[in-house]
């Protein structure tokens, strides 16, 4: 479903991604862990082309997407993204946040978009909050609206960039539950997270990134209990505490 081939990215002289190769099959939930600055977010952004890779190729559903002659707006519609800081549209209600993309990008009618948005909000457990503005919602609620907003575009895959890192502990569970349900329904997802419980439950494979390369990958149990690399071991021991 998603294939990344030897992708490099420079920010000025900083070599952020140093040749990443990754394959995510349809319906797989892949978890990426790694210290901050290791290039995890940049990798996600290279997949939906919010950041343009400097070298290498990205495929989504068999389509080579980082060519010059491709419509980048189209590519981004294929892959939903959820951000660490939610980034809900401040001036719109929860319902309008979910409706905006389908109406303005896909040209869906207002009624259809509204029906679908209501369904999606119900799916993330927020039917009652449809008319609330982001500022009136808790962090966990905002993040669930953000997931609904991404799903409204019918993406082929979802990218989660540390979706629970900005949340108060009491709200983490509700967001992870939504994500777990999504994975169980067979959504292809790449999740950058340090939630080890979630990773063990949902992922068949965990990738450990450091310094812009993939140092190690494997089954959650393997990575958490018997990491091969010294740096993986050091990192895992820190997050498991």
């Amino acid at each position, binding site marked *: 479903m998603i294939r990344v081939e030897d992708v490099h990215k420079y920010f000025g002289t900083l070599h952020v991604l140093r040749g990443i190769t990754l394959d995510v099959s349809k319906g797989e939930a892949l978890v990426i862990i790694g210290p901050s600055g290791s290039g995890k977010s940049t990798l996600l952004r290279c997949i939906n082309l919010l950041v343009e890779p400097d070298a290498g190729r990205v495929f989504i559903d068999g389509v080579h997407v980082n060519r*010059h002659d491709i419509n980048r707006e189209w590519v981004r519609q294929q892959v939903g993204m959820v951000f660490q800081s939610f980034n*809900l549209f*401040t001036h719109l209600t929860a319902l309008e946040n979910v409706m905006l993309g389908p109406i303005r*990008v896909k040209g869906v009618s207002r009624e259809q978009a509204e029906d679908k948005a209501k369904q999606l909000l119900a799916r993330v457990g927020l039917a009652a909050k449809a008319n*609330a503005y982001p500022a009136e919602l808790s962090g966990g609620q905002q993040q669930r609206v953000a997931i609904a907003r*991404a799903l409204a575009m019918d993406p082929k895959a979802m990218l989660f960039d540390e979706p629970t890192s900005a949340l108060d502990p009491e709200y983490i569970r509700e967001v992870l539950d939504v994500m777990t349900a999504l994975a169980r329904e067979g959504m292809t997802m790449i999740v950058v997270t340090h939630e080890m419980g979630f990773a063990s439950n949902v992922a068949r494979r965990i990738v450990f990134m450091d310094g812009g390369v993939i140092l190690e990958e494997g089954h959650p149990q393997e990575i958490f209990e018997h990491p091969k690399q010294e740096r993986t071991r050091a990192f895992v021991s820190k997050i498991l505490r």
Partner: protein
Amino acid sequence: MGSLEDVRRQRTRTFDTIAAVVLTVGIIGLLLEVLVGRYGLSWTYIASAWPIYLRGAWVTFYVTTVAYIVGMGIGFIIGWARAARVSVRKPGAQGAAVFGVKYTLRRMGDGYVAAIRGTPLFVQIVFVSSVLVIRFSSLDPNQLALIAGLVALTANTGGYQSEIFRAGIQTVHTGQVEAARAIGFSRWKAMRHVVLPQALRLVIPPLTNEYIGLLKASSLLLVIGIVELTEIGRREAFFQGKPFESFAIVTGLYLLITVPVSKIVEYIERRLRVPGLGSQQAPTTRV
């Protein structure tokens, strides 16, 4: 603890109120004494002369409003251009050309804003006027003055409004654009549906300030012979020998424009208010 603090606040409030009332009554009394008691405010003059003032007020209002609206167009475009971060340079000759044009426009915008903000409006008015007078000496001087005044005011407010728009657009968090881009919005659509609805709400108060400031600054137009409200007041004061009456009317008429404008905008602002954007009262609990 709390109640002591409350008592203290209550006392301060009471004192403030008394002080305000005393001051206001004193000032009004003094004005009346000067205007009516000592010199005698001529109501007959006011009753007969007010249409002239109204005409002056109309000139002031319409020059300001036309300049303000055209200036808003200029300010919006330049503000937007200057708010945009350095654009990506696409490969190829066309990419280079687009990049070059954008860069040039942005730097020109910088120069324009620097020139407008860095010089007195008075100088700008006289400058534009003298250029036009030399260039188009065949035109009617009154018309020429009006055009010069409009051009100078428009250019001036355009520069200031561009800064207001730039600040408004830049205040909208970059995460908003990123989120819009991530669901497939083009740059333009992200601007139109996500950034602008937020930025425009944020710039309403400073834009109102700018209108009121411009209205007052338009009195400088009298220097190039435009007969606006202040000029009427000045003429009447000197030629009719009625300084108190005329400037009382002038003051009243300025307030008659500025106060309703502020009130109307306040109303609009309240209607458009969204929780989490701009100035906030306590968050509404509408859920």
